[in-house]
């Protein structure tokens, strides 16, 4: 057991990376495995600085390949373990992430997106959206929470551990360099004070009982001889995934009820959309926001409902339509026209969105 540092509601002024380390501790995370990469380093730094008080564990590995796989080892040993990465680190960690998917290991990872492809920038992007949802040679049996600021980082990092351990799908907190590096006020709390109890962990290896007396030895395999054998397993996973999706999918709407122009954005870009919507509303333009919080799985029904109500949609991302691609698939059959504002690896500001929406009023998008 670890010592929890936050015992009562504490308002702090922190960077997002610091928030994540505090959140993991609040979630009673016991071990972090990690490898340095900007912009997630301060998660490790904060975690390490707090170790004498938390009595948790940390291993600095030789690379993200190892960070991913050793996290899996820690989880199999029964610890609430996690890792964090970004950009090229997220790319090479996909190997371990796909193993977590196949073996239903409750892997938890914070992804602080940076510009890509490759090493590109260390600053900011939303270009790991597709990778985090669908990386690896599989079907994307993953749960991805996209956060929009420090309170989200705290809330959803805690939630990620419970989602992962309850449903046994790899679970991510998808943020970005802005959220990692920026400083804003946040309320830290003990999850118990919000009625949140942590889902108990289990030892997959060396669990209770003696081999040959109380139980058989555990043989966790990751290899199948027959195609049909594999498909049977995956069909079971898909069933579990669909059932889970109904319980886990989350979204947020802002002035979406009567919105004629519906902005669809996730993560920190959704916050810029709020700024823009306030400005647009002041000018008499009915703009609103639909923000998927789980970008995988998506909250499909409310998404379709919001889109059906709107006259036009605007997709905006700090990427070239990675979320839009996932969303559009779920909008099949609807014919609301859409426009896009994509800034690859660059922040979208309120001003950007105001002028874009104004241009959509002048010249509506076509189907």
């Amino acid at each position, binding site marked *: 057991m670890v010592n929890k540092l936050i015992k009562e509601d504490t308002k702090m002024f922190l960077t997002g990376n610091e928030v994540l380390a505090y959140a993991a501790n609040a979630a009673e995370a016991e071990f972090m495995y990690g490898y340095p990469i900007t912009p997630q380093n301060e998660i490790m730094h904060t975690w390490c600085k707090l170790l004498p008080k938390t009595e948790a564990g940390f291993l600095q590995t*030789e690379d993200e390949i*190892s960070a991913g796989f050793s996290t899996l080892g*820690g989880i199999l040993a029964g610890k609430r373990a996690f890792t964090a990465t970004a950009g090229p680190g997220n790319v090479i960690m996909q190997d371990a992430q796909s193993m977590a998917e196949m073996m239903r290991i409750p892997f938890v990872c914070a992804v602080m997106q940076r510009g890509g492809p490759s090493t590109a920038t260390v600053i900011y992007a939303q270009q790991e959206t597709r990778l985090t949802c669908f990386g690896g040679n599989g079907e994307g049996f993953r749960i991805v929470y996209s956060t929009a600021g420090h309170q989200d980082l705290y809330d959803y990092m805690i939630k990620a551990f419970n989602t992962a351990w309850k449903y046994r799908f790899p679970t991510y907190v998808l943020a970005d360099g802005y959220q990692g590096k920026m400083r804003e006020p946040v309320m830290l709390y003990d999850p118990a004070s919000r009625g949140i109890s942590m889902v108990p962990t289990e030892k997959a290896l060396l669990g209770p009982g003696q*081999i040959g007396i109380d139980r058989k030895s555990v043989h966790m395999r990751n290899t199948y001889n027959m195609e049909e054998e594999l498909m049977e397993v995956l069909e079971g996973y898909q069933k579990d995934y669909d059932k889970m999706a109904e319980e886990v999918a989350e979204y947020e709407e802002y002035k979406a009820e009567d919105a004629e122009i519906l902005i669809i954005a996730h993560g920190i870009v959704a916050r810029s959309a709020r700024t823009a919507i306030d400005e647009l509303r002041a000018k008499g333009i009915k703009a609103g926001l639909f923000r998927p919080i789980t970008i995988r799985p998506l909250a499909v029904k409310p998404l379709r409902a919001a889109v059906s109500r709107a006259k036009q949609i605007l997709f905006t991302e700090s990427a070239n339509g990675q979320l839009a691609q996932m969303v559009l698939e779920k909008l099949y059959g609807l014919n609301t026209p859409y426009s896009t504002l994509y800034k690859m690896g660059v922040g979208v500001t309120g001003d950007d969105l105001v002028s874009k929406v104004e241009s959509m009023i002048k010249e509506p998008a076509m189907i």
Partner: protein
Amino acid sequence: MAEVLTLPPNLPKSQNAEVGASKFCPGCGHGITLKALANAVDELDIKQKTVFGCDIGCSLLSWNYLDLDTVQTHHGRTTPVIYGVTRANPEAIGIAYMGDGGGLAIGSQHLVNAAVRSERMMIVLVNNTNYGMTGGQMSPTTMPGQKTETTPYGRDCEVTGRPAKGAEMVAAIANPEKSFVARSSVSNVRKLQSTFKKGLINVQNGGFSFIEVLSICPLNWRTNNVDTLERLKTMEEFFEVKEFLQGKSEQ
């Protein structure tokens, strides 16, 4: 009609009796190696706290071979999974089982760093001088002149470099106080078993153990029994069979 006299197979307690026939190719060295390993685990009576991890490649076929809690991982990634386990569970005795490709090529960074950090685990690297499961390609330990699918005219060391000597490399970088490093061979099963035992004792004493096992692959070598053992002898001349570091391997 004559009665058929059947004896129960003489299996180590740590070997999984339910597996039935070995999935390894006829003449493969993995079966010998795993039996010696299981016997060593039995001798030390550590079955209940041992975690066995196996790699991709032929070594993956050991995923249910032992009556030990086992996890099969990805190619080269058994080492980090197992030190992930032992870092999180200080009671666990971790064994990472892999071939020469998994240990010295695709997973070599993990081997190097596990050795440098003296991770509390035993790495067993079965060296049969080729990638067996994928059909017999050149591996880091392929002998000079050896024919494989990717060196059909024999390994040319001018082009591909010299065979990697895993045990020597690990011995050079590991902390001698904490590390047991040895090379053994399937030609001497008793010695192999006692080497495993020493390696496991060193782990019990908080150390890092690396054991390279010279093994045989008659299928991909395309050798008969006599030639297989002849080849193994040549390997034993090239790759020195000995203990490089003792660590705390005395009981």
